[in-house]
């Protein structure tokens, strides 16, 4: 037994010693030992990026970006999308997020990028929506739908299109966009809520009442992520408040 253990110890020591530092560094990133990984390879962009994650998630963006900026400087194509995503979702720094997404897009011609798994045009659409530049947001969400194809696009592309048209005072168009989302799935409370608001603006209170009930019924399917609040996130309290306002009309 003792000789087996001795063999394993010697074997793993030799295995470790013959590895180049870059491989040791990658191995340590996999093991979540980011500081050690950077000691072996200070140019390991994945280690810098991974080291930034917990700080940004915990709201210490000064520290988080100190590390994330190093990752981007070392490998912009790999990390710009994530940095833009963090700026959008965790900080709502729309201008800098757009800068990152646009730079990434320029670095990767003929590729539709997907920062952190989401369509780049959907994310750019959210940035413009946050900036209240609704015409530009509409352009981006439509481009996302074209790229992803109508049946496969993120259903919230249509919800956002409805919200943008609503904000521009185009209530009929808003209704069309919210209905497009519901054609793909009936479980989109954001669309029902949007329809209720648009019909209320058009003076069709009965229709508004009908859709606010649907919004309340489907609230369990709302777009939700306890890491971040989405820009189009809705809440039961807001639906109930709007419902009471409609009842008193």
């Amino acid at each position, binding site marked *: 037994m003792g000789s087996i253990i001795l063999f394993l110890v010697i074997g793993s020591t030799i295995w470790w010693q013959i590895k180049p530092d870059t491989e040791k560094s990658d191995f340590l990133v996999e093991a979540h030992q980011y500081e050690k990984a950077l000691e072996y390879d200070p140019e390991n962009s994945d280690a810098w990026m991974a080291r930034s994650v917990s700080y940004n*998630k*915990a709201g210490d*963006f000064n520290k988080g970006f100190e590390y994330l900026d190093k990752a981007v400087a070392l490998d912009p194509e790999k990390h710009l999308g994530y940095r833009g995503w963090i700026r959008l979702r965790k*900080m*709502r720094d729309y201008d800098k997020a757009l800068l990152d997404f646009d730079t990434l897009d320029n670095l990767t011609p003929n590729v539709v990028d997907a920062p952190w798994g989401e369509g780049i045009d959907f994310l750019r659409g959210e940035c413009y929506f946050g900036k209240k530049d609704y015409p530009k947001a509409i352009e981006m969400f439509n481009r996302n739908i074209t790229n992803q194809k109508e049946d496969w696009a993120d259903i919230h592309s249509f919800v956002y299109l409805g919200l943008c048209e609503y904000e521009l005072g185009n209530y009929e168009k808003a209704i069309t966009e919210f209905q497009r989302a519901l054609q793909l799935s009936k479980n989109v409370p954001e669309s029902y809520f949007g329809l209720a608001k648009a019909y209320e603006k058009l003076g069709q209170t009965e229709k508004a009442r009908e859709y606010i009930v649907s919004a309340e019924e489907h609230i369990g399917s709302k777009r939700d992520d*306890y890491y971040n609040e989405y820009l189009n996130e809705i809440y039961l309290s807001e639906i109930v408040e709007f419902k009471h306002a409609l009842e008193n009309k």
Partner: protein
Amino acid sequence: MTKFIYLLTILPLLTFSQETNDCDERTMPYWANYINSRIEGENPTLRNAFRDIQLVETNITPSSGFITLRLYITKTGEFCEMETFQIDENYEPTVFNNGALITALETIALSLTNWERDKDYKTYNLIRLKIKNGKIEEIF
């Protein structure tokens, strides 16, 4: 005699026992283990709580940046302590309104109650404020 022996056994335990405090427990990040910690009413509650200061503060200096309030909450929903982070538009540390703004925000945050969670762990919640053009533009 039995009582005396019982006292002798229990007394040292009482003497050396420490008062347990839920705030001393290990803090789990809000994203771990499906803790899903939030305030009752979620973010609309937060926005209501900070609405007055949002209306009053219209000339904040520096005029752009970000504030994070990190509130540590026990497994039973009691407030323990708060950490704050203030950065400018380039994400460098700053102090808004020479410290007066963060003091006012902390006071509001301390008045928040009814923290809820799906799992009973000590955790922390973030309240994020975006400052733009001298105003509190977003609270989330």
